[in-house]
């Protein structure tokens, strides 16, 4: 169960995509997401699909690994699909009791489900090819112009780094506590919803206690090393744009323009 979560999991590699500047990658993803919402027909999806498959190919990530990221969100995708199928008005195809499936509903449902799938695969591609550290570096740099209007860019980035940094730790810990309680006969897999929720207590209590303990220790460790915000801090790896970054963002710019234009043609 726990090992299915690929969101926020870096898949190491040394490809063109991996080496792109994180700022560029974030901008590309923002453009990608925006373009998805400009699409109003099935036809441009072909290009989106092509774009995703091409990116997966050149970033050397097994397709299976990307698809696995869809699994935890399968429920949301199916709910979206079902709601759209049944609650869109139009030409009735067939009826099941009070519910009716319409032609428009079917096409709308497929359309929405595909949008979600593209959204998830596209964004998980960002986290799969970018290490959390460079990702937050990128975010911090992108947000830094807003410092002037009082946005604590560095602190936000720091909080994100810490949160991301602790995802694997907490997952590992959850796994360990789960096993420890299972060794004492706890059952996390059967029973009805209420019982299952109750059975989570032996897992959640120790998990929270440990998380708070860790947070405390981290805070003390940071203070012991005189940590304070972003002013005048230098960094180990300065972000620099190179030709490939410019190339990637230009291609994306053209692609974005093209997708947006399909709406108005």
């Amino acid at each position, binding site marked *: 169960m726990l*090992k299915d979560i690929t969101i926020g999991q870096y*898949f*190491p590699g040394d490809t063109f995509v991996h080496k792109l500047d994180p700022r560029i990658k974030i901008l590309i993803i923002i453009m990608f997401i925006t373009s998805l919402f400009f699409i109003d027909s099935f036809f441009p999806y072909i290009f989106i699909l092509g774009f995703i498959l091409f990116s997966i190919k050149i970033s050397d990530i*097994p397709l*299976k*690994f990307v698809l696995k990221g869809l699994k935890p969100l399968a429920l949301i995708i199916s709910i979206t699909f079902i709601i759209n199928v049944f609650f869109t008005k139009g030409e009735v195809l067939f009826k099941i009791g009070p519910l009716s499936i319409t032609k428009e509903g079917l096409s709308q449902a497929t359309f929405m489900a595909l949008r979600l799938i593209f959204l998830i695969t596209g964004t998980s591609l960002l986290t799969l090819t970018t290490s959390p550290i460079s990702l937050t570096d990128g975010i911090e740099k992108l947000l830094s112009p807003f410092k002037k209007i009082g946005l604590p860019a560095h602190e936000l980035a720091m909080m994100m780094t810490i949160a991301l940094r602790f995802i694997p730790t907490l997952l590992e*810990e959850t796994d*360990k*506590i789960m*096993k*420890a*309680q*299972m*060794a*004492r*006969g*706890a*059952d996390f897999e059967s029973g009805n919803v209420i019982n299952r929720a109750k059975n989570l*207590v*032996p897992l959640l*209590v*120790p998990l929270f*206690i*440990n998380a708070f303990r860790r947070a405390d220790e981290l805070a003390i460790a940071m203070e012991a090393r005189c940590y304070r915000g972003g002013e005048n801090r230098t960094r180990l790896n300065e972000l620099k744009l190179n030709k490939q970054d410019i190339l990637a963002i230009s291609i994306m710019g053209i692609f974005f323009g093209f997708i947006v234009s399909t709406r108005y043609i």
Partner: protein
Amino acid sequence: MIIKTENLNYIYNPNTPFEKKALDNINLNIEEGDFVGLIGHTGSGKSTLVQHLNGLIKPTSGKIIVDGIDITSKGANLKEVRQKVGLVFQYPEHQLFEETIYKDIAFGAKNLGLGEEEIHRRVKKAMELVGLNFEALKDRSPFELSGGQKRRVAIAGVLAMKPKVLVLDEPTAGLDPRGRDEILGKIQKLYEEEGITIILVSHSMEDIAKLVNRIIVMHKGKVAMEGKTREIFEQAEKLEELGLGIPQITSFMRAYKRKGNQVRDDILTVEEAKEELINYLRRKGNA
């Protein structure tokens, strides 16, 4: 034979760049009533191996037979297996969650579906076994205790399930010397008085030398050495090659012998060394 493994293999994250062979063709036989030490370098697969023994991890291939039941077969009753093989994890105090010590220790017994009276009896007994005062502590919160006491509560929680085999994964890690001696003393007593089969995972060669009858040495997911405690610690060079060592006192006696003193070099504990040295000095005095 209470635990037997046949060609046990386990691979972490198969088919990803993080793929790692954690266990490589492990064949083990643990006799009932034995006290086995499991040693090995960090990452040698000890913890992975012990988690197989009560079905917490399913092997990639191979068989595990606990008390005559193949626990890897479909439909094996894992709850029963986990009752038979009690596993105490590293830092087990991190799993405590109940409001009172009594409730926490009773958790495992309760999951077995026992009656109130039986649970009460078992909790009391388990607390006695680990040296916690039942009346004084049962209604207190486990989080008020010291590290060593918390750990003993966690061990009691496993003991309350009355396991036939007790597996302890580094039970003394991070404890002060007194806490360590207390835990080890209780483990020794459990073995001697309750006749439980014990598997002890440890990095401390001293603890292993003092307690166990037999040693299994793991290296890179394989069983590198196996034998009686004395036989294993006689092979100091091989152990050092595997990133391990021998007890300090054994090392001392070996060095002393190399200096030309006719003493035994298979000494395991300080007490043994003391006797041997007194005998040696007497022999020398008489000669």
